[in-house]
C-alpha cells in the first residue's frame, strides 16, 4: 500500500485519525498504510503523531495517526497533540484536509460528544464505526443510514483488524471535498449538546449493546480480590520458568552454531589479525548477544498477549491503591509496565499521565523496571551460576532467581517513586480515571507481527550498536601488542597480552573503584562498554574470553572457570555474581533512555539526575550485596 510518491508536484492529501482512546485508530492506520504501528488493547497506546503514506484510487494520501482523546479539551500532553494538529499549531505540519473520526460502536453515546466537537472545527469529516463485530455479538444495533442523516456526514462501519468494510472506506477517502457536510453543526454549549446527543441516540440506536458476556465471565475471576491475585502470581511464576525451560534448547542450538561459525572462519582464513577479528571480535561479540533471541521472543510474546487481550488496564486497576499510597496513579503503572519491553516506550507512555509532577516521577523511575536489554545479562549469569535444580515440581531455581530480579526492579521503582514524591517533587495528588477495555482475542497475525517487530529491533541492535562496540573493543583488546616474556607458559600468553592492551589498561585503572563490589578488570571493561547499551557487557565478556581461551568454549563455561592470574581464585564467586546482577538491576546504562529522558523532560538536568541517582543506588546496593553474600557463602 505505502509507496513513495513520485515527484514533488503531487502534495499528498492529509487525513487525520481522531477518536477516543482504544477505538481502533491505529488498527485503521496500519490497514491503510501497510505500516506496523503499535496497537494494544488499552487506552493510551499511541502517544504521538505518526504519519504514513498510502495511494488509494490513484490519489496520494498521507494518513496521520493521533493519540486517543475523549475530548478536544486536553488534560495530558498526548491529548494536547491532537488539538495542535487539528488547529495547525505545529510548525511545518499542515492542518489535515479531512478527518476520519473513529467511534467504537459499543460506546456511541459517549463518543458523540467528541464527534460534536470535531464537527465544530468545520473540516471535511467522515465517521468510521469500529468494533461493529462486538456490537453485534453483544446484541446491539446501530442504523448506519439514520446516523448518516442525523450527523450529515458519511458513515462507514468496519471491523478494523479483519479488514471488513475497508473497501467502502477506501472508496470514500480520496475525495474529502465531496463528503457530505452537516447543514447545521451540532450545538457547542454543554446543555444543548447533551440534548443533541440524546436526540441522535434516539434516532439511530436500534438496540443498545448488552454487557459482554466474555468480559463479565473473565473479570469475575481476574478482578476477584483473592482469585485474581492468585492467578497473577501463578502467571508470573510460570512465565519466568518458561523463559528458561523453553528457551534453553534453542539457545544451545544458536550457541553451537556460533561456535561452528567461529571455527569455520579460523579454518578457512590464515591465522592472523583478520581471522582473530572475525572470530573473536565480530562472531563472539555479536553472537554472544544473539543467542538470547529465544528468550527475547518468549518475553515479548507473553507481554504482547497480555496487552492485546486487555489485561494491562486490569493490572493498573488492581494495583492502583498501592500506587496511590506512593503518590502515583494507576495510569503511571501502565507506563511502568510498558517499560518491561524497553524503557524508551515506557517513558514516552508517561505522556498519558495528566499531572506534570507525576509524569516526571514516572519518567525518573521507569529505567528501574527490568527492560528486555537486561535479559541477556541475567540469563547469562543465572544460566552459568544458578543450578537448574527443581525447587518444587516444575518450579526451578533459575526461574525463581529471574523472577526475584524482576521483582527487585519493580519494588525499587515503587520505592524510588515514593521517595521522589516526598522529597524532590512534593505536590498535590492527582485524579485518576481509566477505562477498562473489553477482553479481546488478539488476531494471531497481530501478535506475531508485533513480536517480530521486537525481535527485529533486537537483531538490529546486535547488527549496529553491538557490532560497532564489538569492533572497537576488539581493537582496544588487541592493541597495543606487547612482548610476552618467554618464561611465561603458552596458555598464559594470551591473558598476559590482554591485560596489557588498551582496554586491559583501562580496566586495571578502574579496579580500585570496582574492587569493593567484587569486580575484576574484565567486568570493569564490560561495565564501561555497557554504558552504550546493557547487553554490550555480554558481547564484551564473550570477546575477552574468546581472545584469552585457547579452544572454543562457551561463554557460560568460560566465566564459570575463570581464575585470577595472580591469586588463582575464581573470578566469579557467588558474591561477585550476586553483586553484578544487583548492579544491573539499578544502573542506567543506556544511551537511548538518557536521550529519551532529555527529550521528554526537555532538560539534560533530569537525564543527568536519573543517571546519577541510579548509579549511586547501583554502587551502594552492589557493595552491600557483595559483603552480605560473601559473609554467608
Amino acid at each position, binding site marked *: 500500500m505505502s509507496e513513495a510518491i513520485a515527484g514533488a508536484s503531487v502534495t499528498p492529501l492529509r487525513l487525520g485519525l481522531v477518536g477516543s482512546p482504544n477505538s481502533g485508530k491505529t488498527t485503521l492506520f496500519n490497514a491503510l498504510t501497510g505500516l506496523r504501528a503499535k496497537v494494544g488493547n488499552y487506552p493510551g497506546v499511541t502517544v504521538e503523531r505518526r504519519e504514513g503514506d498510502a495511494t488509494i484510487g490513484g490519489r496520494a494520501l498521507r494518513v496521520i495517526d493521533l493519540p486517543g482523546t*475523549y*475530548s478536544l*479539551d486536553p*488534560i495530558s500532553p498526548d491529548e494536547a497533540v491532537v488539538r495542535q494538529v487539528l488547529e495547525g499549531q505545529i510548525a511545518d505540519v499542515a492542518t489535515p484536509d479531512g478527518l476520519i473520526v473513529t467511534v467504537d460502536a*459499543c*460506546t*456511541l*453515546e*459517549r463518543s458523540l*460528544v*467528541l464527534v460534536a466537537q470535531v464537527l465544530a472545527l468545520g473540516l471535511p469529516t467522515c465517521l468510521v464505526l469500529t468494533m461493529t463485530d462486538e456490537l453485534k455479538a453483544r446484541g446491539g444495533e446501530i442504523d448506519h443510514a439514520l446516523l448518516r442523516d442525523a450527523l450529515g456526514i458519511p458513515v462507514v462501519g468496519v471491523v478494523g483488524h479483519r479488514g471488513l468494510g475497508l473497501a467502502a472506506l477506501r472508496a470514500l477517502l480520496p475525495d474529502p471535498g465531496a463528503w457530505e457536510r452537516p447543514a447545521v453543526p451540532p450545538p457547542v454549549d*454543554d446543555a444543548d449538546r*447533551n440534548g443533541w446527543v440524546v436526540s441522535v441516540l434516539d434516532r439511530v440506536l436500534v438496540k*443498545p*449493546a448488552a*454487557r459482554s458476556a466474555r*468480559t463479565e465471565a473473565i*473479570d*469475575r475471576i481476574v*478482578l*476477584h*480480590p483473592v482469585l*485474581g*491475585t492468585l492467578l497473577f502470581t501463578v502467571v508470573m511464576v510460570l512465565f519466568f520458568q518458561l523463559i528458561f525451560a523453553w528457551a534453553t534448547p534453542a539457545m544451545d542450538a544458536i550457541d553451537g552454531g556460533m561456535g561452528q561459525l567461529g571455527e569455520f572462519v579460523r579454518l578457512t582464513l590464515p591465522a592472523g589479525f583478520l581471522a582473530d577479528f572475525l572470530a573473536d571480535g565480530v562472531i563472539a561479540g555479536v553472537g554472544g548477544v544473539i543467542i538470547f533471541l529465544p528468550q527475547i521472543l518468549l518475553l515479548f510474546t507473553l507481554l504482547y498477549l497480555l496487552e492485546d487481550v486487555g489485561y494491562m*488496564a486490569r493490572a*493498573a*486497576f*488492581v494495583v*492502583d*491503591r*498501592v500506587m*496511590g499510597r506512593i503518590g502515583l*496513579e*494507576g495510569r503511571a503503572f501502565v507506563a511502568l509496565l510498558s517499560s518491561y519491553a524497553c524503557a524508551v516506550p515506557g517513558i514516552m507512555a508517561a505522556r498519558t499521565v*495528566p499531572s506534570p509532577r507525576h509524569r516526571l516521577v514516572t519518567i525518573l523511575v521507569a529505567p528501574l523496571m527490568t527492560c528486555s536489554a537486561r535479559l541477556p545479562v541475567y540469563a547469562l549469569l543465572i544460566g552459568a551460576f544458578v543450578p537448574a535444580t527443581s525447587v518444587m515440581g516444575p518450579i526451578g531455581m533459575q526461574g525463581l532467581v529471574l523472577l526475584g530480579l524482576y521483582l527487585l526492579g519493580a519494588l525499587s521503582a515503587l520505592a524510588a517513586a515514593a521517595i521522589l514524591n516526598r522529597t524532590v517533587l512534593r505536590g498535590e*495528588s492527582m*485524579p*485518576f*480515571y*481509566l*477505562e*477498562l477495555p473489553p477482553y479481546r482475542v488478539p488476531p494471531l497475525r497481530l501478535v506475531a507481527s508485533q513480536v517480530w517487530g521486537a525481535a527485529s529491533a533486537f537483531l538490529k541492535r546486535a547488527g549496529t550498536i553491538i557490532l560497532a562496540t564489538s569492533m572497537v573493543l576488539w581493537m582496544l583488546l588487541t592493541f597495543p601488542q606487547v612482548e610476552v616474556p618467554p618464561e611465561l607458559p603458552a596458555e598464559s600468553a594470551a591473558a598476559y597480552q590482554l591485560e596489557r592492551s588498551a582496554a586491559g589498561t583501562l580496566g586495571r585503572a578502574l579496579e580500585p573503584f570496582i574492587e569493593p563490589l567484587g569486580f575484576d578488570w574484565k567486568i570493569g571493561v564490560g561495565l564501561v562498554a555497557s554504558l552504550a547499551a546493557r547487553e554490550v557487557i555480554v558481547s564484551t565478556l564473550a570477546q575477552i574470553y574468546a581472545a584469552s581461551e585457547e579452544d572454543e568454549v562457551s561463554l557460560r563455561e568460560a566465566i564459570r572457570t575463570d581464575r585470577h592470574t595472580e591469586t588463582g581464585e575464581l573470578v566469579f564467586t557467588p558474591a561477585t555474581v550476586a553483586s553484578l546482577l544487583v548492579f544491573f538491576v539499578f544502573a542506567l546504562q543506556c544511551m537511548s533512555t538518557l536521550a529519551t529522558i532529555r527529550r521528554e523532560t526537555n532538560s539534560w538536568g533530569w537525564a543527568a539526575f536519573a543517571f546519577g541517582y541510579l548509579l549511586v543506588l547501583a554502587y551502594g546496593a552492589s557493595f552491600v550485596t557483595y559483603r552480605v553474600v560473601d559473609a554467608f557463602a
Partner: protein
Amino acid sequence: MSVAIPLSELPVGALAAVVAVEIDGPVGRRLRDLGFRPDAAVTCRRRAPLGDPRVYELAGSQICLRRSEASGIQVRPTQAPPTGSDNE
C-alpha cells in the same frame, strides 16, 4: 424519590442516575466527557482488592475511578441492589 448520595457510597451492584458532577476545572470536565452527565445511568460494578478504586459501568463502558473523584459525583439510587452482585 430517594436522596442524592456521592457515587462513592453507591453499593456494588446498585444502579443510580447521575445528578451532578461537583468537581470544578479540568477533572470535572473530563468526568463529563467520560459520560457523567445529568440523568446518565451508572452502576457500581466492582471494587479493587483493597476497596478502592472501583469500576463503574456507564453508557456501555467500564470506568475505574478513585474514591476521591467518585465522591464528587452526586447520584440518586434508582433501584435496590439486584441479586448476585459480583465482588462481595
